[in-house]
Each structure stands twice: as structure tokens, then as C-alpha cells.
């Protein structure tokens, strides 16, 4: 029987890890600050993986596990597509496919005051930005960018929304432009909104075009 414990590669960065794998040895990195992203946890003197996926490192000190899931882990700064579930006095309750419902303050719109609160019905689709996503608290959303401008956030009218995995959403939003979107754009005129939480909205002049574009994107997931 091979001795698995002797096979410790210099680093796991870029390779697939499974839950439990110890990926970073903290005792060899004293006096450094490292930032742990999604999927990693601190376990005594080392960092171990909680999910299965590829370990990625963004220089100089950010580590995370990139994996493709159907559910979303809210992260501050992400743009997502949310569906209104309920409305309270001070905020709307939005479902963003995460472990908890998110709050959208009623005033988080460009030029929003108590007098011009938008009326969103249950089931409305919105393009939003995640402002805060702290542990233990419901995430907070906003319909403005960091400077307070509307910047295309808000209600998405007409069109068709479908769900994908978070991996496909990330691929669609990557730069340079994803080859699927580029080649689709040369053939069909359509507009698209992609949420990092695995929701995609497509709109075009005719239902035929919408269905073609949506099917092409859904089938592009290998």
C-alpha cells in the first residue's frame, strides 16, 4: 500500500482539493497577513479546505477555492439577480439563492426618499449589488453603485430569466469576453444581465431570439 502521507507537493495551488485537505502551512508564514476567501478555514496551525474545488491564489495573499455550485455564497461587492419575496416597512426581502434572505433597503435607489419608494410586487426580478455579507447576518443589497448612481441596477422588465451554476456565471462575466457571448452577439441582437448567484436574464426583440440565446448559454456549460 502506498504511503499517501509522504506525497506532499510543494503547493496545491491550481490543483483540485477535497474537503479536509490541508493546503497551507501557517507556521512557515509567520508575520504575513493572508486573506481567506470562499471554502477555506483556519484549523489550528494550518488552513484546510471545506469544499471540493480548485485552489486559487491571487497575489500577494488572497486564497480561495473555486468551485461550481447551484447555490450562492454571498460576498460583498458581487452583482446578483434577486427576486422579491416580501416587502416590509424599511426593506424588501430578496431571494438571492443563498443560505439566507437578503434585505434591500427601501431608500437604496438613486434619488430615493420616503416619498418615492418603488412598488415592487412579489416575484419581481432585480439586478442588485451586494453591499454587506457578514457572517451571521442577512446580506444587504443596493440598487446603486458605490457612488450612489443608478448604473443599470434595478428592475429588469420583460425578457426571460433562467438559472445556471455559479461556475457558468463566473465564466460569462470573465474578461476578456466569454467566447459564447462574443459569437452569440455577432449573430443575434440581445441584452443580457448575469448575476454571480447563478441567475441569467436575457431579453431580445422576439421570443425566438430569446429562446435561442438562452439555450445556447445553457448548453455551453461543459
Amino acid at each position, binding site marked *: 500500500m502506498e504511503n499517501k502521507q509522504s506525497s506532499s507537493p510543494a503547493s496545491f495551488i491550481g490543483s483540485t482539493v477535497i474537503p*479536509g*485537505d490541508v493546503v497551507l502551512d501557517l507556521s512557515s508564514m509567520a508575520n504575513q497577513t493572508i486573506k481567506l476567501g470562499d471554502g477555506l478555514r483556519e484549523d489550528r496551525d494550518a488552513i484546510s479546505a471545506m469544499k471540493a474545488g480548485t485552489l486559487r491564489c491571487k497575489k500577494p495573499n488572497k486564497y480561495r477555492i473555486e468551485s461550481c455550485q*447551484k447555490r450562492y455564497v454571498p460576498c460583498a461587492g458581487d452583482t446578483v439577480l434577486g427576486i422579491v419575496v416580501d416587502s416590509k416597512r424599511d426593506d424588501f426581502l430578496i431571494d438571492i439563492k443563498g443560505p439566507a434572505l437578503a434585505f434591500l433597503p427601501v431608500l437604496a435607489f438613486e434619488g430615493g426618499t420616503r416619498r418615492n419608494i418603488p412598488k415592487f410586487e412579489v416575484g419581481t426580478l432585480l439586478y442588485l449589488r451586494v453591499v454587506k455579507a457578514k457572517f451571521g447576518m442577512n446580506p444587504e443589497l443596493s440598487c446603486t453603485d458605490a457612488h450612489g448612481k443608478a448604473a443599470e441596477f434595478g428592475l429588469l422588465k420583460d425578457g426571460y430569466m433562467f438559472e445556471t451554476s455559479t461556475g457558468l456565471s463566473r465564466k460569462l462575466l470573465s474578461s476578456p469576453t466569454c467566447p459564447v457571448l462574443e459569437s452569440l452577439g455577432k449573430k443575434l441582437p440581445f441584452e443580457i444581465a448575469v448575476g454571480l448567484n447563478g441567475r441569467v436574464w436575457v431579453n431580445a426583440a422576439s421570443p425566438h431570439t430569446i429562446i435561442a440565446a438562452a439555450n445556447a448559454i445553457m448548453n455551453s456549460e461543459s
Partner: protein
Amino acid sequence: MEVDREDGRSQNQLRPLACSRSILHRAHGSASWSQGDTKVLAAVYGPRAGTKKNENPEKACIEVIWKPKTGQIGKLEKEYEMILKRTLQSICILTVNPNTTTSVMIQVVNDDGALLPSAINAACMALVDAGIPMRHLAVAICCCVARSGLVILDPTKLEEQKMKAFAYLVFPNLVHSVLPEGSPSVQGEPIENGIITSVTHGTMSVDDYFYCLERGRAASTKLSDFLRRNLQQQPTNSSKAG
């Protein structure tokens, strides 16, 4: 001592394993696990907001629903649900998503011996597929003791019925580590020497039980390898191993 098993396997040989992940479209995570003719399908939904009434809201809650192949749900199914729930609670990190519920549905497709270990393996793979944070994986195996004192692994249903006693054992998987001294340890012992769950039926002597543990632990390394290889492939492929 040579043993004559019906399908020609040796004492410690496992049946062919097959595992596919992401097979159900609507479930957030799913896996199908088969050991020989025993096949189990597991689906995971969650984490969803809210916990049940008697559960601690500071932790995530795992609920298990076991659906047998035929017949109504009875005490045996409830017992399996409880064993699975306790096992999964000890491998999942419950503090990451407080006040949420993760539902695990187990559907028995075919029962040909070692049903509960197959279900535990399937549930573990489905949880990985759904991205639920876990401490490590769980590897389950069935060992049985024959009337002659012989210990065999992974029995079929016929073999199980002829045995004096059998034990379902669940071990943590082998982890790869960048640490120079190998895998992390708890109180001086490496994690692989631990045990998560042990369910026994029938009577066996203490020595027999320890021998089962030893055999089961040796077989769990093979299962660990299989799990690792399966997870390193792309999600929508199915994989087979002997």
C-alpha cells in the same frame, strides 16, 4: 484460510464501485452510489433559511429523509435517518451557516447488502456536490463475522443473512497535506485513525470487533482513493472503479 464467496471475491475484496454526481437537475447537490448491485441515490437541498423548532439556531441543521424501495416508512427507516443525521452532523461544519436547514433525501434504488454504508457514501458525495462546508469526507464500509470466525468485507444480501454478526463502520477519509509531518492530528493521533460511526448487529467478541475495525480501516484507504479520483474529475461524468 480460503473462503468461498458466491461471486468469487476474496475476504477483503470490495464489490465494483460506481459514483456519479450532479445527476438530478433540480436538487442542489446529488449523487448516486453503487457497490455491486446495491444502489442508492442521494439528493441535497440547501442550505435554506430557517431551522426546525427544537434545533439550535446557532448552528446549521441537517435533516435526513430515507425513502425505501418499496413499502411504508417504518422504524427501520427512522433508525437509518437518525444514524445518517448523526454521521453527517459530525462531518459537516455546522457553524458556517447558522440558522439554516440542509435536507438530505436518500432513495434506495436497490438493496443487495451493505445498504447503510452505501447510503452514507452517497450522502457524503451529494453534500460535496452541493458545496456544503465539511471537515473531511466520510468513508463507510460493512464488515461481517461468519459463524466460523472469519471476517469478510462488503457482503451481499445473501451473505449478510448467513452471518453471525455484522458492523457498519464509518471512517474519516485520507487527507493530502502540505504539512511536513503529513496529515493533521488530534491529540497526537493522525485523523485517519479516528472513527465516526459504528453500528453493530448480532453478537461478536471484542477481538472480532477490533479485527473488523482493522480490516475496515484498511479498506477505507481504497475507498478514500476512489473518492479523491472521482472528485478530481469534472462533476457531470460518472466514474467506475473495481
